[in-house]
């Protein structure tokens, strides 16, 4: 039977997924793009969320959903279908690998391991876009977004961690 409590628990659990779907169906790639003169700080919050949950709490974020979110983003931004999906799945792959080889997880080590995750996902994406599509890159913009995505990870770390605490309280 669905009670308010079970509904709330379920909602808290799917919150990151709902947020990811919402972001993938919006036209902005970063929240800072909405604020005039702040678009220079553009970052990819989707990658932060995917990396965080794949690394820390994979039970909250199904890889099937990550794949679907990537496909939605591809359709909306006009990149070849499946390109962003592979990009996000590579992030998940690196995060899962790091989770498997890390004995004592710490914010600093997880933050610095975000660099290879970003590197490999961008590398795969570059290879796909450069070789299999006619699209050109805004290298400067991409570099900036990647840099700020890396830089803002520790800011989002406690926020995303608090979601886990919230869920644990419910449990």
């Amino acid at each position, binding site marked *: 039977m669905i009670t308010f409590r079970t509904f709330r628990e379920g909602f808290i659990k799917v919150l990151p997924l709902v947020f990811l779907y*919402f972001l993938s*169906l*919006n*036209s*902005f*790639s970063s929240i800072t*793009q*909405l*604020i*005039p003169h702040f678009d220079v700080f553009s970052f990819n919050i989707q990658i932060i969320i995917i990396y965080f949950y794949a690394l820390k709490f*994979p*039970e909250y974020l*199904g*890889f*099937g959903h*990550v*794949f679907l979110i*990537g*496909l*939605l983003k591809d*359709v*909306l*931004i*006009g*990149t*070849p*279908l*499946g*390109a962003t*999906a*592979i990009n996000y*799945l*590579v992030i*998940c*792959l690196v995060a*899962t*690998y790091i*989770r*498997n*080889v890390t004995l004592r997880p710490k914010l600093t080590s997880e933050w610095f391991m975000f660099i290879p995750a970003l590197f490999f996902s961008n590398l795969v994406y570059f290879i*796909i*876009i450069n070789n*299999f599509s*006619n*699209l*050109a*890159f*805004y290298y400067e*913009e*991409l570099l900036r*977004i990647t840099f700020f995505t890396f830089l803002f990870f520790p800011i989002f770390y406690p926020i995303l961690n608090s979601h886990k605490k919230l869920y644990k309280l419910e449990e």
Partner: protein
Amino acid sequence: MAEQRDDFIIALRYALLKKGTQQKFSLFFLIIFSIIIFTLDKLSLSYVQKTRAVLNDLIYQVAIVTSTPEKFTKYVIKLTSDHYSVYRENEKLKEEVEVLRNEKIQNEYLLTENTILKEALQLTGTKVLEQDISIIAKVIIDQESPYLKSFLLNKGTRDGVLKGMTVFSKKYLIGTIIESNYLTSRVLLINDLNSRIPVIIENTSVNAILTGLGKDNNLELQYLPEQFQLSAGKNIYTSGKDGILAAGIPVGVTYVDKKEQVKVRTLADLNQALFVNVTNGQFRN
């Protein structure tokens, strides 16, 4: 060394193949599935294209609803900034009106002269192509992406919007249709890196290629003749040399930036375009 390599391979294989708790698919399966989808999309088979067009329409319709909070936020921010810049804008507009008034007088003279010359050369009565159509469409999503600067329009093949048609905001060229679905279509904007337009510069016979820079409304002129000095305040028109765009469509204008360098910007404000005209010929009011 060999042990380390084995550990790496085991951890990677585990990450790829192991389905974690509450995971229905392994990463390996999903990556292969993505590659298959990507390959099918790349092959451009007719049934895949049709499926993608339906999928596009569906997702765009959902995106219209989900992007409502974003549109509202943008509207509020714009409203606030407009409110604070009214006085400054009024002063600027007064100056512009004065300049335009002078230009209008000059234009009227040139128009009369042009008509007389056309009559003398028997060039009057240029026929408008009967197949030229103009469709008014609304911008439903203004996509910000590091890969493609594009708009989504609420008109598709059902309304006669086809791939390759030109798009105007007011009477200025802003882009071309690159994807046409049944209900929606995508416009590649002239400020995109992939955009290439053969143009001619006002009061000169200099031809160039106008490309986008992806930054706001800024454009760049490529393949200008050596020693050619670009001056500010020159309008840039399509030359029609590509055989797709009609000649004489206003696209951009030169200006001097803060660093005292002559740059090119679009005549239409691409960030403010809400309703656009899609046509297969020259746009006429």
